[in-house]
C-alpha cells in the first residue's frame, strides 16, 4: 500500500468518525487543524486505524505522533516489516 493510499484510507476513516466529508488529510495535518478532532476522537481514530489495517501501535509511538504523516509512517512500517 502506497503512502497516498494509506492517507486516503485515513481520510475516509476520519470522515466517517466525525461525519464530515470535507476533511482531507495530508502528511502535515495536525490534530489542531481539524476542529472536532479532540483527544477522545484521537483514541477513536487510532482504534479505527488498528482495526482497519490489522495493526497495533506501540504505546510509546501513540504518544509521539505529532502529525498524520507520523501515523502513516508507523502504519506502513508495521505493514511492510516481517
Amino acid at each position, binding site marked *: 500500500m502506497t503512502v497516498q493510499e494509506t492517507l486516503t484510507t485515513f481520510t475516509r476513516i476520519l470522515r466517517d468518525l*466525525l461525519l464530515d466529508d470535507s476533511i482531507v488529510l495530508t502528511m502535515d495535518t495536525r490534530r489542531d487543524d481539524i476542529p472536532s478532532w479532540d*483527544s477522545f476522537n484521537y*483514541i477513536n481514530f487510532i*482504534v*479505527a486505524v488498528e*482495526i482497519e489495517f490489522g495493526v497495533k501501535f506501540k*504505546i510509546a509511538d501513540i504518544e509521539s505522533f505529532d502529525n498524520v504523516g507520523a501515523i502513516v509512517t508507523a502504519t506502513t512500517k508495521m505493514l511492510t516489516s516481517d
Partner: protein
Amino acid sequence: MQITTPHSPMMSWLPIAPDFRGDLRTALDSTEPVYCLENLAALAAYRLGFLETVQLDRAYGRSDLKQAPGFLPMRLAVLASSTVDHLLPAIRVAGLRRRLLIDVQSGGYGQYRQDLLDPTSALHQFAPQAVLFSLTAKEAISAIPLTATAAEVEETIAGLIEELRSFWRKAREICSGVILQQTFLDVTEPLFGSFDRFVPGAPARVVARLNDRLCEAAAQDGVLLLDVARASERDGIDAWFEAGRWLQGKLEIAPQAAPVYGDMVARILAAQRGLSKKCLVLDLDNTLWGGVIGDDGIEGIVLGEGSAAGEAHLALQHYAKRLKERGVILAVCSKNDPGIAEAVFHDHPEMVLRRSDIAAFLANWDDKAKNLKAIATRLNIGIDSLVFVDDNPVERARVRQSLPMVAVPELPEDAAQYVRCLADAGYFEAVSFTLEDRDRAQQYAENAERDALLESAQSMDEFLRGLKMSVRFGPFTAVDQPRVVQLINKTNQFNTTTRRYTSEEIAILTNLHSALTLQFRLLDRIGDNGLVSAMILRPTPEDEDVLEIENWVMSCRVFGRQLEHEAMNIAVEAARQRGARALVAEYIATSKNNVISALYSSLGFAAVNQTVSTSGATRWFLDLADYVTHYTHIVRAGVAG
C-alpha cells in the same frame, strides 16, 4: 512482523449491514427528524463494530431528539472510576436498537463520590431514572497486601462493600428507578501461577472474593448487576481489556468491547421496562434436528447421541428446555406437514423437547411471517415479544423484512454454534426469577386445555360457568412482592397508566396506611393461574374521600374471564369500607394498551373532560353510590396468599 489486534467480542447474532455508510448518509439527509430517527434505529439493528457505533451515535446526536413517537425516553447516569466516554455512544445505540432513547450522563472519572454527595452537582440536577456504577478493582487490590491473612482480606473487602452500599443508598435518593452495579473485571496477572488460588491476598483472589461479596450485597439491596466479569470470561480478557488503552487514557473496558458492553446495559434497562422477549419460536428442519423430516423420515433425520451433528441439534433442544424452565414460552413455526412434524415430538426417542413443551405449534405451508403473527395472537403476547430461530437465511431475511419487531438471530452455519449465538444475544434478559416464572410453562399448557374447553362450549357463558373460577385477593404482601413488581413492570397490554415501580416503591406502598393496594390470584378447575392482577389506589390530594387508581395491571393470560369486573367489585367494596365516596382513574394510551381503551366506560365510570390530552390520557370518575355490582362467574375464595 505484523501485530494483530486482539480478538474483539462481536454481536454475531445481528446481521451485517449491506451498506452502512450509504444508509447512514441517507438517514442524515432526511429533513424530517422523526424519519431520520426511524432510519437510525433500523441501522442499529445491524452488527456494528466500534467505529460504526461511534458514527451512528454522532448521527443520532445531530438529530437531537429527546423524545419521539414509539420510543421510550430514559435518563441514565454512569458513575465510574475509569474513563467511560467511549462506552456512552454504545449505550445510546443499543438503546435505539430497543427503541429506548437513553440520555446518558457521566461525570469525570473518579468524581462519583463528590457527585453523589453534592446536592448541587450536575448528577442531582439530571435526576436519573437509572444509575450505573462502573468501578475498577484497583482500589481493593492496592488496599490489600499480598501477605494479608484470609480474615484480613475479608475485613477489608467487607469495608469496601459497605462503602459501596452507602453509594447505592445515596444513588437511591436521587434515582427513582434501577441501580446497576458492574461486576469487577479481573485484569490482574498471575503472581504465583496456579497457586494464586491459595493465597488470600493474591490480586486474582481478591477480585474473585470481591465479586462474590458484591453479588451477595447487590441481591440483598435489590441492586442489579452488569456482569462484565462473566462476559470477559466468555470472550477472553484480551477482548475486554487492553493494557495500552488503560495506560493511554484510563479506559478499563477496551473500545472494541464497547458495542457489546452497551448492548448489555440496554438489555437490562429494557428488561426492567418489561421489554425483554417472552417467546422462543423454533424452526424444525436443520434447526431442531439435522435433515428434512418430510424427505428423510423419522429414521433419517440427524438427532441425538451417536452423531456429533445430532448432538449439536440436541444441545439447542436442551437449551430451549432450560429456557422454558425459567419461564420462556416455546413455539414452533415450520414449513411442514403438521402430522409428520408433530409425530417427531411424540415418537422420536432422542427428542428432548416433547409436544407438551410447545405452547403453540404451527406447521403448515403458509408464509412464516403470517404464522408468527398467529403465534403471538394465540399466546396473547405482543409480536415484538418473539424470537424466531431458523437456519434458513432466506426465511430469516423475509421475516426481518415483513416483521422488523421480531428478533431473528443470524444463526451461524455450524449447528455447534447455535446455542452460543442464541445465548450471546441476551434476548431473554431477566431482572427477577419468580415462582410465577417457574410455573409459566405449566400455565400455558393449562391454557391450551381451557381453549379446548371454550371450543367445545355452546356459549361464552357456559364456558365461564364450567371453569368454576374463584379469586383470592387482598392487599400487597411482602411474600408476593417480587411477583407484584414483575407483573407491574412486565405488563404492557392491560396496564392503565404504564407507571412502573421499583421493589422499594412497592415495599413502601405495602406499608403505607393511606394507600389501598389489591392483588388478585385467579383459580379454576383446571389449575392456578397465579397472581395475575394488581391495583394501586391512593387518596387524591384534593379530597381524601376520593381514591385514584394510580395503576392497574392484569396478565394477558386471563383476559376475557370477567376478572376485571370482579376486581372492580372488590375494589369498590374496599374503597367503601374506607369511607371513600368516589373513585377516579386515568387511562394513558400507549402503542400496546389499546385492548383496555374502553375498560373504564365498560365498568361504569364516566369520562371527565372529554378532550384527550396530548399525552393520550383520559380521566374517569365513578360515584360509589351509583356503582352497580357486576355479575360474574367468579366466586370469592378469601385472602390471597
